[in-house]
C-alpha cells in the first residue's frame, strides 16, 4: 500500500519567536506565520492596553514577517514606475511613499511602501502573505529593465516603534538626529551599536513612529528588541501584537490586503485615488483604470459606525434598512481608542454618502449602523517640538 503524504504547511517564525513566547504572548498563525496576537495582561498588555499605548505613548512591534524587495540599477526608477501606481519619480533619495502593485485590470497584487534608498536603488516593503507572489510579479514584470531585483525578505528583522513617543525612544538608541527625519522619510545610522541601520519614519498604526531594519540573527534581534523596550520604559512602552496592529490600522482606515484591497477590487473602489498617479505615462493597470474612470463606480469603501449594540466583523453582510443585502464588511472591530464599534465595508456608491443609515447582519439580526467620515481616527497635528 502506498501512502501519499501531504507535506504539512510550514509555519514560519521570525527571529523573535522565542522572545515572544518567553514574554507570554498569545501566538496565532497569520498568513503562514506564527506571530504574537497580544501579550499578557500580567505585563500590562492585551489588545486594548497595547492599542492605547501606541495612541498615547509608544508600542513596539515585531514586523519581521513583512517582506522586502530591492530594485537597483540604471533603470530601477523606470522599473518601479512600471509596476507601481504612485509616482516614484517624485521621491528624493531617502524618501518613501505609499503605493500599490496592480494587475492589468487595475486590481491589487499588493500594497507597498516604496523607499528610495539611493540614486538608483529602491526598496519595496510588502505584505507577509504575498511575499512570493509579489517577488515573482516584480521580477517577471521588470525583465525589460536594466535593473537587479532581489528578494531580501529574510535579510532583516523589522521592528516598529510606534506612537507619539516613538521618536524619543529611538533617539536614545541612535546617533542620528531623528528630528531631521520627516514622516515617510528614511535615514541610516548606528542603532544599539549596529552600524548603518535603516530607519524609516513609517508605520501601520496611523501614528508617528519608526520602523528599523536590523540583522536577522536571533541573538541580535533579541538584544535590540529588549534594548528598545528598555529605552521605551520611561515612556510607558509595551510590546504589541498583531491584534493591536489591526485595530490601530483600522481606526486610521489603512487598508489590509485580502480585506479592503484584493485582486478583484480596483483602485477607485478602494478609494486610493490620491496614491494613483494617472498622469504617469504608463504603468501596469493604467489602461483599465483609465477606462474604469469613465464608468460609474459601482461599489465604494465606506466607514461604518454601529448605532445599535453590536460589533460588525469581517465578512458580515451589510443590509439596507429594509433588509435587502447591499454589501459586506471587510474589517470590523471595536475601536479601543475611539470606544466605538467601527467597520469598513463595500456598499453600492448610491448608499455611500456620509449619514446614510444601513444595517449589519449580526447572528441573523440586522443591527443599525451609519456611514461616517473616514479615517475614523486622525493623529493630532504635532506642536513644534521644543528640543
Amino acid at each position, binding site marked *: 500500500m502506498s501512502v501519499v503524504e501531504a507535506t504539512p504547511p510550514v509555519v514560519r517564525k521570525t527571529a523573535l519567536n522565542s522572545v515572544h513566547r518567553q514574554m507570554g504572548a*498569545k501566538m496565532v498563525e497569520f498568513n503562514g506565520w506564527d506571530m504574537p*496576537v*497580544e501579550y499578557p*495582561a500580567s505585563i500590562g498588555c*492585551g*489588545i*486594548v492596553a497595547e492599542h492605547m499605548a501606541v495612541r498615547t505613548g509608544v508600542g513596539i512591534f515585531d514586523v519581521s514577517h513583512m517582506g522586502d524587495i530591492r530594485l537597483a540599477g540604471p533603470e530601477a526608477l523606470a522599473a518601479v514606475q512600471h509596476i507601481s501606481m504612485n509616482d516614484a519619480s517624485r521621491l528624493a533619495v531617502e524618501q518613501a511613499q505609499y503605493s500599490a502593485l496592480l494587475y492589468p485590470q487595475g486590481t491589487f497584487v499588493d500594497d507597498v511602501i516604496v523607499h528610495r534608498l539611493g540614486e538608483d536603488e529602491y526598496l519595496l516593503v510588502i505584505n507577509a502573505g504575498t511575499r512570493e507572489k509579489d517577488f515573482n510579479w516584480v521580477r517577471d514584470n521588470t525583465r525589460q529593465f536594466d535593473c537587479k531585483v532581489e528578494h531580501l525578505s529574510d535579510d532583516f528583522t523589522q521592528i516598529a516603534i510606534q506612537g507619539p513617543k516613538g521618536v524619543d525612544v529611538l533617539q536614545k538608541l541612535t546617533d542620528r538626529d531623528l528630528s531631521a527625519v520627516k514622516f515617510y522619510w528614511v535615514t541610516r545610522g548606528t542603532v544599539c551599536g549596529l552600524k548603518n541601520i535603516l530607519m524609516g519614519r513609517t508605520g501601520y498604526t496611523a501614528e508617528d513612529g519608526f520602523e528599523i531594519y536590523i540583522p536577522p540573527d536571533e541573538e541580535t534581534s533579541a538584544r535590540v528588541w529588549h534594548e528598545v523596550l528598555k529605552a521605551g520604559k520611561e515612556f510607558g512602552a509595551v510590546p504589541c501584537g498583531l*491584534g493591536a496592529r489591526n*485595530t490601530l490600522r483600522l481606526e486610521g482606515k489603512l487598508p489590509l490586503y485580502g480585506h479592503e484591497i484584493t485582486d478583484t477590487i480596483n483602485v477607485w473602489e478602494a478609494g486610493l485615488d490620491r496614491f494613483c498617479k494617472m498622469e504617469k505615462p504608463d504603468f501596469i493597470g493604467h489602461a483599465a483604470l483609465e477606462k474604469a474612470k469613465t464608468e460609474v463606480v459601482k461599489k465604494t469603501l465606506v466607514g461604518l459606525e454601529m448605532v445599535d*449594540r*453590536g*460589533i460588525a*466583523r469581517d465578512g458580515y453582510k451589510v443590509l439596507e434598512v429594509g433588509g435587502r443585502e447591499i454589501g459586506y464588511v471587510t474589517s470590523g*472591530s*471595536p475601536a*479601543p481608542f475611539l470606544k466605538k464599534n467601527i467597520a469598513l465595508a463595500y456598499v453600492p456608491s448610491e448608499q455611500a454618502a456620509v449619514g446614510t443609515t444601513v444595517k449589519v447582519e449580526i*447572528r441573523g439580526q440586522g443591527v443599525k449602523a451609519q456611514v461616517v467620515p473616514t479615517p475614523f481616527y486622525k493623529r493630532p497635528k504635532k506642536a513644534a517640538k521644543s528640543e
Partner: protein
Amino acid sequence: MPYPTDRKYTKEHEWITADGTIGITHHAQDSLGDIVFVELPKVGTEITVGKAFGTVESVKAVSDLFAPASGTVTGVNEDLATAPEKVNKDAHGAWMVKIKMKDPAEMNALLSAADYDKFVSEEAAH
C-alpha cells in the same frame, strides 16, 4: 489559577453552581482577551445543555456560550451589558445568567475543579 471547588465546569469553559448560576472560566477570559460585548438571553428563555445560549466577544474574537445544563433563565447579569470587562477582572464572580435547572443530575456529567484544571493544562500543552 485555583478553580473554585463550589461549582462544576464544562470543556467549553463555562462554570455552573448547584443553584444554577452560570459564567465562564478564568481560562476562557484569558484566552479571549479584552472582553467588550456580552449577549445574554432574556429571563424566561429555555436553554438546553450543550447548546449555545449567548455570545461573548473580545476585541479580536466572537465566542458562543454553551449551556452547562438545561433550564429556564431566571436572572441575567445586567451589569455586563455596560461593563463586560468585569469578566476579565473576575471571571468566577462575574456570573452571566442564573437558571432553574431542569435536571440537577446533569451536573454529575461535568468536570470538577481539579479535573477542569487538568483539562486546561493538557489543552495548553498541545
